[in-house]
C-alpha cells in the first residue's frame, strides 16, 4: 500500500445495491452486462495498462486526456463490443490507438508526437539514479528511430502487456505478423542502442 493515487475509490453505488464478486467475472461477462459497476470493474482492471500504453506513445502531459477519452469512448460505445469478435482488451486498446491518432491528427503534429518524447521527467538525483535516468533518455531517443508500426507494436506488447494474439487483433494483423513486427522492433532497438554505446 504505497501509492495514494493508485487507489481508486469505488463509485457511489445505488442505495442497498449488493453486487456479486465482480472480481471473479471474466472481461467479456462484465462487458456484456453493461452495468455501471461492471464497467467500473473493467476500468479498474485496465486503467493502469491503458495509461502505460498511452504514456509509451505520447507526451506525459497528454496521458490524462487520452486515457480519459479512451474510457469515455469505451463507455459510450460499450454496446458495440462483441465477445465473438475479439477480446475486451484488444477492443479497448484499439480505442486507445484511435484516440491517440485522432488527438494528434487534430493537433496536426502526429509525426512529431506519436513517439515517446525525449524529455526530462524529474530530478535525476544521486549518481546511480542519474545513470538510470540517462539510460532512459537514450532508450527513448532510440525508440524514436523506429517505424511508427514498430513503436506501436512494442507499446501494445510491453507497455499494454497484451499477448501477441491481442497485439495482432489491435493492429489488424495476423499473429505471426505481429510477432515478427515486435521481434524486428526489438532487434532494431538493440542495434540502435549498441551503436549509441560504441559512439560513446
Amino acid at each position, binding site marked *: *500500500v*504505497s*501509492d*495514494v*493515487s493508485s*487507489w*481508486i*475509490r*469505488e*463509485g*457511489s*453505488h*445505488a*442505495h*442497498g*445495491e*449488493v*453486487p*456479486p*464478486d*465482480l*472480481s471473479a*467475472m471474466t472481461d467479456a*461477462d462484465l462487458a*456484456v*452486462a*453493461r*452495468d*455501471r*459497476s461492471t464497467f*467500473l470493474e473493467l*476500468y*479498474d482492471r485496465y*486503467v*493502469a495498462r491503458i*495509461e502505460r500504453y498511452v*504514456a509509451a506513445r505520447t507526451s*506525459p502531459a497528454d496521458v*490524462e486526456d487520452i*486515457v*480519459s477519452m479512451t*474510457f*469515455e469512448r469505451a*463507455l459510450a460505445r460499450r454496446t458495440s463490443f462483441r*465477445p465473438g469478435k475479439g477480446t475486451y482488451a484488444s477492443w479497448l486498446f484499439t480505442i486507445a490507438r484511435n484516440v491517440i491518432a485522432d488527438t494528434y491528427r487534430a493537433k496536426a503534429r502526429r509525426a512529431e508526437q506519436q513517439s*515517446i*518524447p525525449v524529455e526530462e*521527467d524529474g530530478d535525476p538525483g544521486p549518481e546511480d539514479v542519474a545513470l538510470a535516468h540517462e*539510460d*532512459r*533518455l537514450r*532508450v*527513448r531517443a532510440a*525508440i524514436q528511430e523506429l517505424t511508427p508500426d514498430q513503436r506501436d507494436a*512494442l507499446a501494445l506488447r*510491453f*507497455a499494454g502487456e497484451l499477448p501477441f494474439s491481442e497485439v495482432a487483433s489491435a493492429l489488424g494483423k495476423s499473429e505471426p505478423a505481429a510477432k515478427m513486427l515486435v521481434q524486428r522492433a526489438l532487434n532494431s*532497438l*538493440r542495434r540502435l*542502442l549498441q551503436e549509441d554505446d560504441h559512439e560513446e
Partner: protein
Amino acid sequence: MRNDAVDDEAIVQRYRDAIPRPDTSYRARLRASLAAQSELPRSSRRWPALSAAVTAAVVAASVLASVWPHAATPVSARLLLQRAMRAATSPLPLRGTSETTYIQPPPDAPPGAGGDLGAHWITSSWAFRDGTHFWLETTTHEPALETGTSVLVANRSSTLWYSSQRGVAYRIKGLDGTFVIGVAQSGNILPGALIGRDLDRYNTPSAGDHARVIRQALLLGRQTYVLKVWPAARQYPNCSGARQCLKRSRAYGYALYWIDKDTSIILRAEEHGVPGRLGGREDFLYRVTSIRFGSGATRAQLRYVPPVLVHDVPRWTLRGAGGTADWAAPPGFVVAGPPGLLFTLHNSRTVRDTAGTSEFSVLYSQGSRFVYVQEELRTGGLPAALKAGQQVQAGTCTAWTGRYPDGHPWAAFARGRISILLVSTGFSPSRLVRYAGQVCAAPIARPSR
C-alpha cells in the same frame, strides 16, 4: 536461441524502464465521472445467460435489501474489503470526526507498566476533497508526554505537516504517497492501512485468514455491513523463510469493521483478543463520531498556514534505533545516567524524523527494579496532564509526581524544550524524586565532533 531470449529480456526491460511515469492522481476523478455517466436504460439489454443470471441476482438482492434490510445478504467479504480500502484511501468529498483508543506500550517500557505508558487516546477531524486533497487534524490526549495537535494538509502541489508539540512545520512538493498513507492511514488515525493489511492477508490463501459478513447494523443513522476478519494478529516464532514461518505461525484474535453500505467508508473498527505481549496494539477501537458527505475540505483548509516557519524538505523520513550497544543520548537531550551504581542499562530507544530527534528513552534495571526515562522534545514545555500530580522540588527543577492506576510512581519535569517522564517499578515516590533531582542536574548531550 536461448541467448536471443536473454537479450530480448534485457532490451524489453530497458524499454519498460524508459516509459515515462505520468501523474496518476486523475484516476479517481475520471472514475467518478465515468460512474456518473454509466447508467444505461435497462430495457434495451440483451445479455448472455451467465451475465443475465448474475445481474438478475444483483437486482434481486438489491430489491431484497431495500425492502428487507435485515435479510441475510450474499455480499462478498473480499469485495467489501476492497471497497473499504479504496474508500479509505481515496475518499469522496466528506468531513467528519473520529476517536481512536488502544494500548501499545513503548518497546522499552518496564515490565508491568506497559498498560499505563501505552494507553493511547486520539481524536481527529478530517475533511477530504479526494485522495490527494485533504486536511487532517489530530489531537493526542494520551500518552500524556505526547499530547498535542498535528495537522496534515495535502493539496496535490504540496503536502504539509505541522506539529504543535514540536513547534515545527515541514512541506514537500507534490504528493508523497508513502508518507501520506503512512500517517493518515496508519490505523491509529484512519484505518486504511489496517484494512489494507487484512485485505493483503485475505488475498493470500496460504495465510489461512478468513473474512465474513456477520450482520447488518445501523450506525450514525447509516446502514452498515459488519465484517469479521480473523485472525487479527499472528506471531511467527523461531522460523526463517515465509513458508516455514507461515506453517509455525500462531494466530490471535479477530477484527470487526462496520462498513457503510453506500460509500464503503469504515465507520467503526475493533480488534479483540490480541495479547499485548505481541508488541502490537491491543484493545483497539476506532469509531467515527460524526460524518457529513458532499462537503469536503475547504479552500482555506487546503491553504492552511501553520503558526511557525515552514521548512521545505525533499522527502519525509522516520527512523528508530534501539538497544544497548553504542548507546548515547542524542544531542540536545539530557544524559540521564543510571539511578545507582548497581543499575545497568537494559534498553534504549531513539526516534528521528524529518525534524530531527523527537524522542529518546532509556530503561535501567537492577534485579526486578526498573527505572524508565522518557525524554520528549516539546516546545510548549511539560504538558498539562503531567502537571496534575503533586508539585515537588527535584534538585533545582520543579517536578510533578503521582501514581498510575497500577500503582507505579511517576515523576515529570521539563528542562528547556525537553520534557522528561520517569516511571519506576520498585522505587518509592520519594526515591524516584531523588532520581529526578539527579537527572535535573545531568548534562545536556553535545553534538559529537
